[in-house]
């Protein structure tokens, strides 16, 4: 019976043929994909940038710069915990403190300035991940060219802004 003995001598031949079959199949699969892209031009992802400034379609995960959102009462969520400063691999963020006196007359530490060096930033997103109170986020702006390098040093908190109530 065929099943009772193994055709050991033919095993390499079987592998040889199955190798060829596998190779042909996977190459054809690839060609199907590129053939699909070739015939479906609506899949094209190129943005013709300066021409379509109004209708620019940026991917969701595109990262342009770090910003700190403020609400309408000019309040932000930053507690000054320095997690972002510690997380940053190349010293892009510096937190400068001031002491604030709150309603009960107690001294409280708060941020004076959150300095952000855009010219050093690699958009690695580690500061956003590290932030425990979601005070900073990545914006999708990308037209950052300036004539003076100092213009790239940004202070993220607005002048006169305060920490939001209830954020510890």
């Amino acid at each position, binding site marked *: 019976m065929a099943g009772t003995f193994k055709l050991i001598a033919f095993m390499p031949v079987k592998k040889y043929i199955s190798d*060829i079959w596998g190779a042909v199949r996977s*190459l054809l699969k*690839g*060609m199907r*994909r*590129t*053939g699909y*892209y*070739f015939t479906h*031009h609506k*899949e*094209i*992802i*190129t943005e*013709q940038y300066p021409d379509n400034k109004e209708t620019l379609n940026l991917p969701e995960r595109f990262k342009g710069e770090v910003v700190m959102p403020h609400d309408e009462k000019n309040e932000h969520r930053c507690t000054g915990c320095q997690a972002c400063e510690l997380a940053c691999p190349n010293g892009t963020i510096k937190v400068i403190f001031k002491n604030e006196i709150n309603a009960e007359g107690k001294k409280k530490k708060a941020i004076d300035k959150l300095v952000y060096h855009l010219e050093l930033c690699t958009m690695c997103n580690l500061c956003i991940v590290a932030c425990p109170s979601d005070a900073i986020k990545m914006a999708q702006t990308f037209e950052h060219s300036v004539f003076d390098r100092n213009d790239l040093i940004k202070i993220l908190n607005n002048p006169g802004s305060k920490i939001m109530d209830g954020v510890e």
Partner: protein
Amino acid sequence: MWSFSNISDNIHDWLSANLDPTWTTIAEMVIAGIAVISLFAVLGLILVLMERKVSAWMQIRLGPNRVGPKGMFQSLADTIKLIVKEGMTPDGADKFLFNLAPFVAMIVAMLLLAPIAFAANFQLWDLNIGVLYVSAISSLSVIGILMAGWASNNKYSLLGAMRSGAQIVSYELSAGLSVLAIVVLTGSLQMSEIVRSQADGWWIFKGHIPAIIAFVTFIIAVTAETNRAPFDMAEAESELTAGFHTEYSGMKFALFFLAEYVNVFIVCAIGATLFLGGWMPLHIGNWEGFNHAMDYVPSSIWFFGKTFFLIFLIMWFRWTFPRLRIDQLLNLEWKYLLPISMINLLLVTLMAILGWHF
């Protein structure tokens, strides 16, 4: 009816009416030379643009779209740029060989054009050993590449040239064997005879599975012979900067570039002639009505249509398949393609002897 053979006959009649036979021959040679050179120029422009557009669409990009309507003049603009650029010769190079190499590459491509039948009764040179001539001349292309690599006095160039030598010498074998399959079926080495034998159906249909295997082997082997990705070991942008044309610039680089694209056209034309019937319209057995309808399409359109279909296929390969390493490349030839095409040739011979094809 308008056709290439009519035009060439008219020119011949007009020349022989006005000139004596010697001058007629000379004038015809000059006309043929000019026609070949202008065909090369047009092919270079069209194929470069086609390659860029095809690759862009396959990679979900737009491709050239700024110069002229839909970017149609992009390759023309590039050519003008290359003509205007300085053709540098490096100090340490072997100047004579360095400057000769692009022309060798180009002349080999030109020689290969001779036996190709572009339309019915329209052929530069219908020699009776056409297929042998093609495989003999196409192996010469390695000389141009080796010359360029050696004369550049640059290790990248030399490495690229050596790889290309190993590659072309080995892939020549399976290309030759797959071509032989059709020669066995036809029983002739003459291009016009091979085309005529496909009047009742192309060999790829008439030859059953062995012909299809031969066709696939042929396409793989000629892709390797023309040094195109996925077999671009001679250029190998990622490891050898630009391989054998690292040191070339300006028009000398353009000649290599043009020779590559013309070679692609030529091998596709040969593939179309051998497997897809050359200028022969699509005929199926003895369906009279269908065959008649197909005859209304001019033979030159059939030829160029098939050739460009094969060119598109080769471009499709290029922009889909991953590149091979040099050892994988030689493995593929010596362990897979060569044994397969040898067995295939035996099968085809058996088929031809027993008359199993249509």
